[in-house]
């Protein structure tokens, strides 16, 4: 079925997926912590929430930069079409991410209650809006957007806000909130820890509810997402693994194995992204209603030469990145303690 796709194109499809999955997992809990931030009440609790992501949020956003860079390099047609087509949505995303960063830096610098309250709200709204917009963009990619024969986006901003993408947007917020809650459990102790533990199951329920809704909507209205799965039924194991990983989270939490719960949450996100990739394959931007205008692994990619050079770059760089990212997280393992360097 896909014999005519060169291996390098396939590899880069996977690698771009890996980078965005890395972003989803890492900044996912940052944004999730932000989404839950306002549910904590005391100043100390909020500072602990902030400082649980303190040393890492900045680096986590680099995954977005690199994912975008890899997309630009490996599939410039996708990068150009999607980024120009989703113009206002992406501009809003950027503003939300920046505003959120400002709020993190600013919040704890002055002691006044109104001051901190204001930035707490900014941090939370920025986080929720970022997660939501990422989800909306994803939802549009899944459901397909109109492309003209020159592969340009042929609709306006409001076309992006159809029910399905909005549903994926809400689901993404729920997913990140769940992921953030589990991360929070892992990084906190005492009353905040107990509070977050209580939230995890609720977050899972909310996420599962929306996730089922998305799944049903996808099966009903977006047939092209299931074509590859139907052709290769063994890929359903990914969906099963996804369900198992999510189902295992409450068990690990109740056993007090917070780290395992977090790993399960990561595994669930990896499986979700894998399902997304499998569903899209071999398309990168599905053109609806004119599928013949779609951008695929084949017609959107850079030359074989570039893909080859970048594979060398990635082969040297990615193991290094993973090694020191893991090392840094290991060094900063354990519960958050507030100190003079804290936010």
């Amino acid at each position, binding site marked *: 079925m896909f014999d005519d796709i060169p291996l390098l194109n396939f590899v880069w499809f996977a690698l771009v997926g890996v980078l965005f999955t890395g972003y989803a997992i890492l900044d996912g809990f940052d944004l999730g912590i932000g989404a839950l931030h306002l549910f904590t009440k005391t100043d100390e609790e909020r500072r602990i929430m902030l400082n649980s992501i303190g040393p890492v949020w900045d680096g986590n956003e680099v995954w977005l930069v690199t994912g975008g860079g890899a997309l630009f390099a490996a599939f410039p047609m996708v990068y150009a079409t999607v980024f120009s087509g989703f113009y206002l949505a992406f501009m809003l995303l950027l503003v939300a991410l920046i505003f959120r960063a400002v709020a993190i830096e600013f919040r704890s610098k002055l002691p006044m209650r109104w001051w901190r309250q204001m930035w707490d709200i900014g941090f939370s709204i920025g986080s929720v809006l970022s997660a939501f917009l990422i989800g909306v963009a994803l939802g549009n990619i899944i459901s397909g957007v109109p492309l003209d024969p020159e592969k340009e986006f042929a609709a306006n901003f409001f076309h992006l806000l159809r029910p399905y993408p909005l549903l994926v947007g809400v689901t993404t917020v729920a997913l990140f909130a769940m992921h953030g809650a589990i991360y929070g459990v892992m990084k906190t102790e005492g009353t905040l820890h107990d509070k977050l533990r209580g939230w995890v199951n609720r977050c899972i329920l909310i996420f599962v509810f929306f996730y089922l809704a998305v799944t049903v909507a996808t099966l009903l209205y977006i047939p092209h997402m299931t074509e590859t799965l139907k052709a290769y039924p063994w890929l359903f194991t990914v969906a099963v693994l996804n369900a198992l990983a999510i189902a295992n989270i409450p068990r690990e939490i109740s056993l007090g194995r917070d780290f395992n719960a977090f790993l399960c949450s990561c595994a669930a996100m990896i499986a979700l992204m894998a399902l997304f990739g499998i569903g899209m394959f071999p398309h990168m931007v599905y053109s609806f209603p004119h599928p013949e205008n779609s951008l695929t692994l084949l017609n959107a990619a850079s030359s074989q030469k570039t893909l080859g050079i970048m594979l060398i770059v990635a082969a040297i760089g990615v193991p290094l*990145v993973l090694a020191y990212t893991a090392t840094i997280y290991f060094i900063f393992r354990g519960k958050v303690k507030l100190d003079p360097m804290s936010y």
Partner: protein
Amino acid sequence: MDALTLARLQFAFTIGFHYLFPPLSIGLGLLLVLMEGTWLKTKNPVYHQMARYWTRVFGLVFAIGVATGIVMEFEFGTNWAVYSRFVGDVFGSALAAEGIFAFFLESGFLALLLFGWDRVGPKTHFFATCMVAFGAHFSAVWIIVANSWQQTPAGFHLVNHAGITRAEITDFWAMVFNPSSMDRLIHTVCGAWQAGAWMVVSVSAWYLLKGKYLDFAKRSLQMGLVVALAASLFQLYTGHDSAVGVSQNQPAKLAAFEAHYPTAPASLYLFGWVDEAGREVRFGLAIPKMLSFLIYGDGNKPVRGLNEFAPADRPPVNVVFQTYHAMVAIGLGLIGLALLSTVQWWRGKLFEQRWLLGILVLSVLGPQMANQLGWASAEIGRQPWIVYGLLRTSDSLSKVVSGGAIVSSLIMFSLVYALLFAVFIFLLNHKIQHGPDEADLTPVGPLRKEPRADV
């Protein structure tokens, strides 16, 4: 205004704002390595205090650099989709290398640099500092390679796919070492070192004027001044080198630098105002034949003038002329200031002369202005091309983005960047007012152990 002008305005605004921060990260990164290295070497706790203090400033600068850098990366696609399709194959590999090699290096070890003082040993921490500084420099390499490729494209061929022409790479190393990349890299990095060094000088001079943290301030000032002196003198050489490169690779840009119209032996202007309609420089003061001499070592050699280029292929001359001359003037001024301060230091009077300290407090603005002006002249001088000789800026815009959409995003960015700048100034001021921490003179955690002398 049309969509093209708005998109250019937006790019200029966002890149100008972003470019306040990366040079500081690069320059401060170098100084952090020097400070922490000196501490490990001498075991004098004041260097530990310096490293801790400037690390805090570095963290702030870096955070804003990342936040505004994400915008830049998105903007290629959002506003310049045609350009992105054209250059993706070439430009993309440099950008991907930047992300994978440099950004992760910086941001990964940044956590350790900022928050790891009490969690790892001093040698490991020093290693993290070196990696962050190295990453900052390395990211400059890739982005300048990509930008230089736009100035002097090399190592590619043009291929047409289904009606869309794009540049595809044929020789990676020819692309990396395109004719202008190394000249421009050292020139830019040198500017970045000055940005960091003069900032350290400036804050230290302020403490000295206020009579606060004297030991800290004197040593910081000395260290900053050494780097500032070396970098500003070296900049003279790199600047010259860049100009010679421009004369070979982008003659229209060089001609615009000096508003040189007929092809003839060229003079070097000290200042002036270009009358573009009349094709002459008014109110100017020039050294005859000096440009020819600087470039060819022979004052009588002709330099290609703007008249050789069709009006549609000429950059806007006066703005390039003014930004270029302002950059040179500031660069020379910084050399003068660095030399003067060094002489006073040698005479043992650097810390007493309040007028000089007053000037040094303001010195932080010099490299920032020169860096901005230099970029402006380099990029406006490239016009009307976005990729020199291959693709015009006017043809590169996203087709699907309306002027209205750009206006709304421009307004959003103006507001949020105004906020961001307020945050930066507020927090920087907060850190400066707070001053170095007394507690940092007695290191805590694993750092309490004295580093061995052999480190």
